């Protein structure tokens, strides 16, 4: 493993303890000498084994020293490889809540082994086998009696404030995490939360009072040196367990969004739904994809067909409420190959962070082996005025195989969509659809869904 052949991850530069790099498509984590003592403690105290056993920390093996040649490295770790990287602003309420719980449980466990979670960044959590897991093995530092928890503010900004806003205001506020790389500022969270939260001890102390104290400390230029008071281990445990209780008590605010219940309202009979599921199942079985993106997935009915066929499915929808329902179903059924994510396809998540390189855009994380675009194209073309040629172009950049549904203009759904507006879509017809998608794809198969005039096409990307 030559140091010059590795590609250091563009987001892995803040912590001097080590960094993440890829080599030949495999992700590794280097441990620097700076972290050697803490790493030894993590591995020898039994903390790593405990965290790994409970699924709180990603498991790794150590690469033998003979296999790497960087003299600056104390160790090189080969962690379990993740199927798909996702970011906190793409998660629904329960995904962020589960990630917060994992972080707090790791913190309370670490304290029992003489260590502490030195940072509490939501980006340190990823979904692996359907569950959130800490992926930053170097986040644990030796705990010295009396030390405060340096990650407390980060926990509040990355987890508590967004969860509180999604619980007390609106689930769509998870998107604010994309604007603030180090979590939603406490002062902003305090201003956005409803006045009733001032009456709650937890919201009052961890958010409102916390925000005021930040401002006061900044104005008076208080030094941390004078404030690093002696906190007993029991006090820190009480703080962490108190936060854990608070996070567990939060529930998402529900508000019957436009897409929740959409599956119930759709103009499909039971027979046509079953036929559609059969078409999807046959197409997935024929292609045998490893990675499927289900765009406009709603509650993930067809994503599940893909995972049952052995694929890993990223189930994407712009509505956090349907992704919430999708995720809860995945957790209840123990589906380890399903990752529901919030993303509006009309405005997909861009590249973010320093030099726009820390967080990859949605499209940069492709292409997928197969995309499902079922009952989606007419919403993009007629609902959002996106020309069908542009839709076909985007699909062509996302996948090698595409399963796409064409809904004709006389379908009750489109009649309803056009009932209050001018029809400015002369090119939206089957011939126009075939011409647009034929530019990028070859048509492998077409199936008309029984009891409807809708057709599902299986396409293959042209070389």
């Amino acid at each position, binding site marked *: 493993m030559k140091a010059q052949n590795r590609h250091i991850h563009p987001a892995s530069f*803040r*912590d*001097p*303890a080590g960094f993440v790099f890829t080599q030949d498509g495999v992700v590794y984590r280097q441990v620097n000498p700076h972290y050697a003592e803490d790493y030894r403690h993590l591995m020898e105290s039994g903390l790593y084994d405990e965290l790994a056993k409970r699924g709180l920390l990603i498991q790794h093996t150590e690469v033998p020293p003979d296999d790497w040649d960087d003299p600056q490295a104390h160790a090189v770790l080969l962690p379990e490889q993740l199927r798909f990287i996702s970011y906190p602003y793409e998660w629904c309420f329960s995904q962020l809540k589960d990630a917060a719980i994992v972080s707090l449980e790791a913190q309370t466990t670490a304290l029992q082994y003489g260590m502490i979670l*030195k*940072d509490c960044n939501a980006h340190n959590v990823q979904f692996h086998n359907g569950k959130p897991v800490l992926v930053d093995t170097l986040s644990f*530092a030796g705990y*010295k009696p*009396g*030390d*405060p*928890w*340096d*990650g*407390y*503010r*980060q926990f*509040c900004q990355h987890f508590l404030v967004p969860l509180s806003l999604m619980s007390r205001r609106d689930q769509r506020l998870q998107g604010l995490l994309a604007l603030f790389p180090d979590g939603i500022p406490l002062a902003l969270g305090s201003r956005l939360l409803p006045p009733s939260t001032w009456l709650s001890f937890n919201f009052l*102390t*961890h958010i409102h*009072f*916390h925000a*005021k*104290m*930040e*401002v*006061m*400390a*900044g104005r008076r230029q*208080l*030094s*941390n*040196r*004078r*404030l*690093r*008071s*002696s*906190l*007993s281990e*029991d*006090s*820190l445990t*009480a*703080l962490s367990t*108190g936060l854990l209780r608070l996070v567990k008590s939060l529930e998402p605010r529900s508000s019957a969004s436009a897409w929740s219940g959409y599956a119930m309202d759709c103009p499909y009979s039971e027979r046509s739904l079953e036929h559609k599921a059969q078409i999807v199942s046959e197409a997935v079985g024929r292609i045998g994809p490893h990675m499927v993106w289900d765009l406009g997935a709603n509650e993930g009915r067809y994503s599940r067909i893909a995972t049952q066929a052995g694929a890993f499915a990223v189930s994407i929808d712009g509505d956090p409420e349907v992704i919430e329902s999708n995720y809860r179903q995945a957790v209840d059924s123990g589906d380890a190959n399903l990752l529901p994510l919030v993303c509006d396809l009309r405005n997909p998540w861009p590249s973010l962070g320093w030099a726009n390189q820390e967080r990859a855009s949605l499209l940069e994380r492709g292409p997928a082996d197969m995309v499902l675009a079922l009952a989606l194209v007419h919403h993009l073309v007629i609902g959002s005025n996106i020309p069908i040629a542009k839709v076909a172009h985007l699909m062509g950049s996302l996948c090698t195989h595409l399963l796409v549904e064409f809904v004709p203009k006389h379908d009750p759904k489109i009649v309803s969509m056009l009932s209050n507006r001018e029809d400015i879509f002369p090119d939206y017809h089957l011939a126009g659809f075939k011409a647009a998608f034929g530019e990028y794809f070859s048509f492998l198969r077409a199936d008309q869904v029984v009891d409807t005039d809708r057709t599902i096409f299986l396409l293959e990307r042209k070389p």
Partner: protein
Amino acid sequence: MTRRARFSRGYHLLTLIASPRRLLFSYLDPGSGSLLVQAIVAFILTLGVVTRRFWRGLFSRGSRDDRKREEDESSE
């Protein structure tokens, strides 16, 4: 647990006194306001724990005394 041990345990839990000590900073700025809030919240939560333990200890001792008295009476 003796009264002395209970007192020292309580004192330990309530030790939130700012004192000059070894300073070790992490790579992350925890924020001065956050350190203050953390100390205050931890103090309040710890106070709750100590109070609960005190009351639990009081009642369990009370019930132990009651049981002992009942046993003495029955043996007489």
